[in-house]
Structure formats: C-alpha cells, structure tokens
C-alpha cells in the first residue's frame, strides 16, 4: 500500500519543524523559553497577579492548542507529539514561564495520557511552591453516557471553554474564580462529531483506521479513535439533526436562552460543507426557541487531515456571554 500524501520532510521531525514554522510566522504572539522547545508562551498576556492559563495536549489538532495562546486567552501551552500528551517537563516549563504568582490553571482535554502527564507536572510545580489547579474538558457527549460526564473526552468545545477561562483570567479574577468559570463553561458545553475519512500519522503515513466510502463514523473523537457506531453516510441535514437532537436533549435549555455555536472541521472538510451544516444548525436552534449569540465556523480543532465535522453548542448565561465576547489576540484566533 502506498503512503498517504503529505507535505512533510521526516515524520519524526514533523512536530519540531511545525513549531519552527509557527515561531517564524508569529513572532509577535509567541515565544519559547530557552531549553523548552515544546513550551509556547504568549508574548502579551501573562503578567504579575494574573492567573496563568496553561493548555496543552498532543499535536495534530492545530490550531488547537498553540493557536489559542495569546492575550485574553491561554497564557502558555505544552506541546506533545502527534496525538500524544506532552510529558510533564514542557507543562512545567510553560507554567513557570507564564506564572504571574496568582496560581496556574491546567486546562486540557480528558485523556488518560494527558491526565497522567499533567498530574506529574502539577506535583513538580507544587514542589516549587506554585499553586496549580486542574480542569479537564469533557464536552464530547458521544464518548460516555450523561451520568458519567467526568469520563467524557474533551474535543472542539475546548475553544469556548478556553476562551471563557482565558477571559476570566485576563479580567484578573482570582484562581478560585477562574477555576469555577472553567468548570462552569465545561458543564455548559456540548459537542458531537462525525468522521468521513481517516487521518494518518506523519510517522507511518497509513490511514489510522479503515472507513469505506459510503460510511461514516458517528461520535468520532479527535485522534482517530473510533466513535460510537458506524453507519451509512447521510445528508448534511440528517447528520446535523442527529447531532442536534443529542445536544439539545443534553443541554435542555429553555426557550429564550442564548447559545454560542462552533461548526468545526476535523481537517479536510471544507467551509462549504460546514456552512451548509450551519444553515441547519441555525434552523434547529431557532425552532428550539434559542438565540444564537455567536457562531464560529472553520477548522478550530482538527485531527490532521481527517474528513468530518463536529458541532459544539455552549449554553450561555450572562457571565459566559460576556467572557466569550471579551477580546483576544492569539496567533491563530482574534476577536474584539
């Protein structure tokens, strides 16, 4: 079988070369501490008295996580290998570089590997006298039943959750408050996705899984992990309806409430398809009596070149709405 088509040099060097290219492109937004090539820190943002938001995870989800480092959002990021949690050291380096003396919030998706590595980083930081809190994102409603929310994965909802927590920290809220906001944002954020093709790792350049033409994987994660079930590929409206049925049931929002929406590409699904989906998402929310306060559409949280999409809905309240509206200026995301 031939290798998948990629513009890379050496699969093992892909993450480090990507980082070099990111630093070359965004010198006004990002820097890396000496001797910590896998930690990226916001040029603007971290400051004395401010809680440091440190995000991170495996590579291959760009612009998540690096792209959300910047003023008003995350302060620093620990970068792992492709689909692999970073080891503790970059998380420690990122936290120390961003630390403003008001505590550090580790905020990342709920995966076994990330939890083990970030927990080790927390222990190391606490040994250095840095106060560390951890909030895991668990927005993927397809990844565990409702009564086991804490077992769910964190996926594209990261964008809204990071945004809310980042704004809270930028507003100089104390660590207790920032942690509360992050948990609250996570509690009110719901995502579900479908995959239409596999991705392939740069090291192997083989499809991570087989997905025959004409089929889709429902409840797909963002690492090529299988979803809940496989079924025939259906129309955009049918797919949106299945996802929105699930999200609306979970969210259980009374008519009149406001939401934020993210229609996200898993990689190779183009904007045309995402906007076709969004037309239906908007229709479904309207008929549920909900007001869309903000819509993001595009590749915000990806799985390399996987085809597919996810829909995220954040159930807003006044606080979350204000935090989402707060300006931010990151290498790959700007607002306000």
């Amino acid at each position, binding site marked *: 079988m031939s290798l998948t088509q990629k513009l890379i040099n050496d699969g093992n060097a892909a993450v480090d070369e990507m980082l070099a290219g990111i630093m070359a492109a965004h010198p006004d937004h990002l820097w890396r501490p000496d001797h910590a090539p896998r930690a990226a820190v916001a040029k603007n943002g971290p400051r004395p008295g401010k809680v440091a938001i440190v995000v991170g995870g495996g590579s291959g989800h760009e612009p998540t996580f690096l792209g959300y480092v910047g003023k008003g959002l995350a302060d620093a990021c620990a970068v*792992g290998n492709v689909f692999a949690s970073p080891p503790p*050291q970059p998380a420690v380096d990122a936290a120390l570089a961003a630390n403003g003396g008001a505590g550090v919030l580790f905020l990342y998706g709920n995966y*076994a590997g990330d939890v083990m590595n970030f927990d080790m980083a927390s222990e190391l930081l606490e040994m250095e006298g840095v106060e560390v809190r951890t909030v895991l994102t668990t927005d993927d409603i397809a990844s565990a039943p409702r009564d086991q929310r804490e077992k769910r994965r964190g996926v594209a909802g990261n964008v809204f959750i990071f945004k809310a927590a980042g704004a809270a920290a930028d507003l100089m809220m104390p660590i207790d408050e920032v942690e509360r906001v992050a948990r609250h944002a996570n509690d009110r954020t719901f995502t579900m996705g479908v995959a239409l093709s596999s991705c392939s790792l740069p090291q192997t350049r083989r499809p991570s899984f087989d997905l025959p033409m004409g089929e889709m994987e429902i409840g797909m*994660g963002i690492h090529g*992990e299988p979803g809940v079930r496989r079924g025939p590929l259906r129309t955009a409206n049918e797919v949106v309806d299945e996802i929105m049925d699930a999200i609306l049931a979970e969210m259980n929002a009374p008519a009149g409430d406001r939401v934020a929406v993210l229609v996200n590409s898993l990689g190779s699904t183009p904007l045309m398809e995402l906007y076709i989906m969004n037309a239906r998402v908007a229709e479904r929310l309207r008929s549920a009596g909900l007001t869309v306060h903000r819509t993001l559409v595009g590749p915000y949280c990806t799985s390399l070149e996987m085809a597919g999409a996810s829909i995220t809905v954040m159930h807003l309240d006044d606080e979350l709405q204000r935090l989402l509206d707060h300006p931010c200026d990151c290498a790959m995301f700007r607002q306000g």
Partner: protein
Amino acid sequence: MDFTTGDLKNLFVAMAARMTAERDKLCALDGVIGDADHGIAMEQGTKAAADAAQAADGTLQDVFNAAAKGFLNAVGASSGPLYATALLRAGKAAGPRASMPRDELRAAIAAMREGIAQRGKAEPGQKTMLDAWAPAADAASAGETADAIAAAARQGAEATRDMVAALGRAARLGERSLGHPDPGAVSAAMLIEEICSAMRGPAS
C-alpha cells in the same frame, strides 16, 4: 554471571530494536481501538531510554532512572508516565548496585507492574498493559522460569481480546473494544520477552 549495568544498557538496546521492528504492527493494533500511535510511542520511548541509559554513569538504579527520564521526555502520551514510573520502581528494586544476580530481574518485573498499576490507577481485567505485566509479575514472584514468565505475559496480552476496555482511549468504545487485543498489553509482552531473555543470561 551477574546482571551488570552493561547488561542493563544492552537490555534497553534490545527493547528498542524490538519496538522498532514491531512499530507498524503496534500502530495497526492501536488504530483499531485507539489512535494508531502506540508503536511510535514505544519505538521513541525505548530508543530514548536506550540512549539515556547508554549515556548514564553509576549504578543499576542510576541507569534505570536515566532510562525512565529518557522514555518519559521523549514520549509523554499514556505510555510515557506508565513506563517511566515502572522503570523508576525497577531501579529502586535493583538498588544502587553495580550488578545483581540475574534472578533478581524477577523483582524488577514485579516492581514494574506495581509502578504501572499505581500510575495508571489500573487493575487487571481493564484491558491495559497491566494485563500482560500482572500475570508476568505473578509468575516472576512465584519464581517461575523465564520461559514461563514470558508465556504468562503473552497469554495475558492475548486475553485482552475478550475484555471490554475500562481505562484509556478504548474505554469510550464500550463493547466495540471486544475482539481486539490491547496494543499496550501486546507491546508489554514483547518487552517482558526481552527481559526474560536477559534473565536467561547472555547468548554465548
């Protein structure tokens, strides 16, 4: 003939060679119920462990510790903390000695199992690498032969086919994880084979 720091360094080299050889197979197994990268993590981790071990001076424990740190920093992921903790425990078991009787590799296997179980908050039957390490450690602690320990590990790995995953990525699959072996258990059985082969003594 005792097991020296040189033998330990060779063991890490052998593990790295084994993981390089098995990389694509392990990735394919991980692709079915996980994210298709386990072979990469194990190749990079064991290579970094071997390199760090090679560069380390000092006792068996020092070499184990260097390998642990090398593995962890190269890999992260799930395998990184699990094997780093396992290797630190093995180093503690081996202790600050220049060498030890080859038989004491049994204690190293038991220590690695403890490290993995503790770091992963894992129990046998959850379809993880522990399902290879636990039976191997039991066999080792019972004083069984190298062959028997390796066989126990392989059987443990094979038995994960019939388990529903309760930890790690595959845990989200529920029943869909049935019928496929856990990649971490399969690679664990391979590493245990390499340890058992070191236990038998150098090929003469």
